[in-house]
């Protein structure tokens, strides 16, 4: 719908259109403003040194290497746990069962999980991993908490991707003598991979940007993580602390720029993947 249809000009229409135009401009400008502020103040801070040196003097000096490493480790653990769980759940829901009370419960559970605020995940991770399981504030606690947080995203996107695989493929595969598992692994999953990857990448973005759930589970120790059990400060926590406590505005902007750029890159890659996927399917 291009809006090209010729209509008799009416004042109401004109006014509404003007109003909509204004609102859209405000919305877009505000969002772009945020981006521009971060990038304009942050990009000048970026240098190879910023990325390859550890923070010193509480983040006033040095770079953000350790926080980048911590972010990567945390995200890696989160996905390592959430991807098999999420994709497995999606396979079960779509391929191995018919709609029943069990699937409804699982789906409802996933939906509820998706709606739980990250602070609740943080509370939970703090009690379970940090305290009860005695992992302490650590990469492991933080990663597992994030895994639970992104799980619904992975389940939902994988399920959609799997559902989008034409059922004819399954029928053909069965008629050629596949078992169900063979059908899943040889026909369904390969076709659904782009969609699943999209979900995983989205989860990476969420993990990188998360603060509330991480600060209570991974802690905020400002040093290079060297084991699963070391407490570490991720980029977003680092940014939060730098910015809020006024430690160093230039470093805060620099960190924010890295954060925003990596998330933008991730989202653009996802978007590109999805476009490609949609194109291929049609």
């Amino acid at each position, binding site marked *: 719908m291009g809006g090209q249809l010729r209509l008799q000009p009416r004042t109401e229409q004109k006014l509404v259109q003007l109003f909509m135009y204004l609102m859209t401009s405000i919305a877009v400008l505000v969002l772009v403003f945020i981006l521009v502020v971060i990038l304009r103040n942050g990009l000048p801070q970026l240098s190879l040194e910023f990325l390859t040196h550890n923070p010193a003097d509480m983040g006033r000096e040095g770079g953000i290497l350790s926080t980048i490493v911590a972010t990567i480790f945390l995200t890696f653990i989160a996905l390592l746990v959430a991807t098999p769980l999420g994709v497995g759940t999606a396979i079960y829901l779509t391929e191995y069962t*018919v709609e029943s009370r069990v699937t409804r419960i699982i789906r409802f559970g996933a939906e509820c999980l998706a709606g739980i605020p990250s602070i609740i995940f943080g509370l939970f991770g703090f009690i379970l991993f940090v305290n009860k399981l005695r992992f302490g504030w650590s990469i492991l606690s933080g990663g597992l908490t994030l895994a639970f947080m992104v799980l619904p995203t992975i389940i939902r996107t994988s399920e959609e991707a799997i559902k989008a695989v*034409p059922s*004819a*493929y399954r*029928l*053909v*595969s*069965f*008629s*050629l*003598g*596949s*078992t169900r598992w*063979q059908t899943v692994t*040889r*026909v369904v999953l*390969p*076709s659904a991979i782009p969609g699943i990857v999209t979900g995983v990448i989205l989860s990476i973005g969420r993990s990188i940007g998360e603060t509330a759930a991480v600060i209570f589970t991974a802690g905020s120790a400002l040093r290079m993580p060297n084991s699963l059990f070391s407490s570490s400060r991720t980029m977003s926590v680092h940014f939060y602390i730098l910015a809020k406590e006024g430690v160093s505005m230039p470093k805060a902007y620099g960190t924010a720029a890295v954060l925003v750029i990596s998330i933008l890159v991730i989202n653009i890659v996802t978007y590109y993947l999805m476009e490609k996927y949609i194109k291929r399917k049609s």
Partner: protein
Amino acid sequence: MKQRGILVRDFSHYYGQTRSLNRINLDIYRNEILGIIGPAKSGKSTFLACLNRLNDLIPGSRVEGKILVDDQDIYGPEVDVVALRRKLGMVFATPVPLPLTIYENIVFGVRLLGNNNRRELDQVVEDSLEKAGLWTEVKDRLHTSALKLSGGQQQRLCIARVLALKPQYIMLDEPTSGLDPISTMKIEDSLRSLKKDYTIILVTNNTKQAARIADRTAFFMMGELVEIDETPVVFTRPSDKRTEAYLEGKFG
């Protein structure tokens, strides 16, 4: 001497409460082409699905009576469904190449058995494509996507894919319904040549196609087998008024 391959005895099929096949009795001989004709929703396709138990995939599907394939009750407790489906290869109405290369499409079923011997696979690909009459057209681009083939080529690819399974029966469900006359002709040609090695069950809503290539023809209507006989007999002297009416195009 005609040898009986498939025996269907008092066979009924239900989707939930609805009966879709009602007490079918028929025999299918080895190395014949059995044409199955009938109006839409007459149970033809259901019948095919019952023969290789693809109907299992539908919740609420239920059967009564017996189907014996090579003297084995295919609804018996000891049946290996996977082996049964390899024995009765199936070609669907719309060509469905898997999103793989031509080569991988053909060897899909072979690989399922764990056979990854390159030489054997190459041989299978060549033989199957040859038999399906596609070899010369695609031999230079075996490793390109099967989705790039034309509709007719795709359908012959599907036939070749079934042949690679080394089945004994080939079931085709309106294989030419979406194709142009030339592709249709090519497929009919390959079916005729396949007859000497395979038993072919051809569901078609094109009565002329049955007349052209079927040895015998069965007429299904509303889940019932109305009549089955040598093709010329069915087409020239049908014993049932409904058959006659259908062939004359009074409904369908």
